[in-house]
């Protein structure tokens, strides 16, 4: 039987590549997309999810979720994805419509009717899943696992130690870590192990004629912003996370205790990964540490070039 996955996202340039990868993979079935604020407002990310749903013929329901974090007003606004959230690339306007249910209700309903087979993958701030957990105290009986692109065991991006999805709603991440649902964190420390070099980037894009020109334009914008932040090459965080979902054998990980700093200090939004060998704290999170570069990059290239 195919693995069943619900993807919570905020498209999003790297979300787009991750979704392309997911829908091309015969081993999984994407049940639905849920949307959240993050790379842009929830209105924009929902609009973008509908765009992708039509453009790539995903044909899945799209459910809109949270517009704001759980408790504190939004503090962090990324400029990575441009005002339209898609690197200023214009896709054809969507004809599909958002489904009439909240993201958190969809997560619960889809999980419950399956009986612990549903993987929930999050590519944006964690607010929707957190509301599902708070609203449905029995959600843990029905969700198989939550896989998260977010946080970091090492350095951050939005803040020195803070990754933007978690910084956008640290409490939501803490709610998930407290939930007793198995959690896998694919943080920046892991996605950065897939960063392609300038040379590798050149190779993939040398024959760009096989890649959809809109995607080429998007990724050119994305690489440009990463360069602006002083990084060489390019890493597509959400796509790397999707690769972990599809090919867990490419990842190495450790089960550890993870906490989130929720006090509004310089560490606000830091995922604190307890690597002490003698730690007695409950191991609540599988922390991915490396992703095998070679097979991942090959898979990425295939995703981009095969239609």
């Amino acid at each position, binding site marked *: 039987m195919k693995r069943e996955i619900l993807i919570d996202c905020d498209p999003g340039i790297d979300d787009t590549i991750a979704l392309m990868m997911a829908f091309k993979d015969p081993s999984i079935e994407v049940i639905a997309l849920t949307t959240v604020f993050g790379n842009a407002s929830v209105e924009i990310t929902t609009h973008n999810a509908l765009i992708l749903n039509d453009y790539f013929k995903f044909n899945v329901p799209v459910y809109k979720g949270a517009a704001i974090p*759980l*408790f504190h007003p939004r503090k962090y606004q990324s400029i990575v994805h441009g005002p339209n959230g898609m690197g200023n690339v214009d896709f054809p306007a969507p004809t599909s419509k958002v489904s009439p249910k909240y993201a958190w*209700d969809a997560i619960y309903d889809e999980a419950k009717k399956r009986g612990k087979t549903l993987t929930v993958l999050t590519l944006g701030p964690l607010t929707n899943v957190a*509301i599902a957990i*708070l*609203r449905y*105290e029995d959600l843990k009986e029905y969700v198989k696992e939550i896989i998260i692109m977010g946080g970091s065991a090492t350095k951050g991006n939005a803040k020195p130690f803070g990754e933007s999805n978690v910084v956008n709603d640290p409490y939501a991440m803490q709610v998930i870590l407290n939930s007793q649902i198995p959690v896998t964190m694919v943080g920046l420390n892991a996605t950065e192990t897939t960063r392609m070099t300038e040379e590798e980037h050149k190779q993939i894009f040398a024959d760009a004629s096989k890649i959809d020109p809109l995607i080429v334009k998007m990724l050119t914008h994305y690489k440009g912003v990463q360069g602006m932040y002083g990084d060489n090459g390019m890493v597509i965080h959400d796509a790397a996370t999707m690769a972990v979902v599809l090919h867990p054998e490419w990842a190495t990980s450790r089960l550890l205790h993870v906490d989130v700093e*929720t*006090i509004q200090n310089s560490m606000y939004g830091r995922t604190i990964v307890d690597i002490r060998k003698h730690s007695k704290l409950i191991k609540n999170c599988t922390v991915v540490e490396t992703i095998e570069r070679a097979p991942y990059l090959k898979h990425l290239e295939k995703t981009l070039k095969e239609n």
Partner: protein
Amino acid sequence: MNKTPIIIDCDPGHDDAIALLIALASDKFDLRGITTVAGNQTLAKTTLNALKVLELCKRTEVKVVPGRSNPFMKEVIVAKDVHGESGMDGPVLPTPTTKPYPMFAAEFIADEVEKCPTKMTLVAVGPFTNIATFLLAYPHLHSKIEKIHVMGGGIYEGNRTYLAEFNVWNDPEAAKVVTNSKIPVHFFGLDVTHRAVILKEEFEIFRNEKGPVFQFVADLLDFFAICYIGERGLPGCPMHDSCAVASLIDLSMFVGEEAFIDVELDGKTRGACVVDLRPVGRRVDANNGFFYYDVDRPRFLQLIIDSCRRLESDIKAKEQA
């Protein structure tokens, strides 16, 4: 007369029970239901206590709907020291013949709000977990809430910490969702509820009346006094939660001010309310509610007595029918 549609979220609780009596006795309310939350005791116990109060008053048609069993970020810490093992120690009431309504509090609130032709008023006298769950999960229904009357917080004093009051302290994040919501919130905090006391020498008013409701209140007061008069040195028993309901019947007996109200989540002041009452320098456009600090005590006491009397005569009428 148009009745005010209300839902009361509570964790009975001695003062919760008296607040419920006031609500049940008043003909000003269309009481759509009682939702229960973990706070003064566990969810199972507070739910059972709500059912007991309704049974005593022969008002079992009112739905009791349980909600969340724990605050958002931590496990509940109950107030056994104040309310005893059962959450309503003192009075001995029979096991209720009715059962909780099989729905989740936040969903029940959403359903009732959606059905209600006018705006709904919410009363929250326990930790605000259920109300906040409703607010988070049903953002499109915020506009259908008239206002929220809460017992919680304090301007200058706390009880669980120097500044944090029990309901807010148990679930500060939920309280933050309420103050963030932009729905007008009326706070009856410790500043006013510690003045809204029934004095020791007034207990006999209730004891001398022979009906079951008066006796119930007298038993509640006797137990409540162990903590409040005996251990904490107050002149009487504070009717915390009753303030949030009594004010919906007659707001003129309370004194308060419009203010900007926020909740601190961190540090030594976690669970404390920030109430900006500065005459100069405060942003008036940021006002999101009212904070009360005084009460006309004799009128307040009279309302409680009148409520009991009304319930006694209703019970008698039902027994004769």
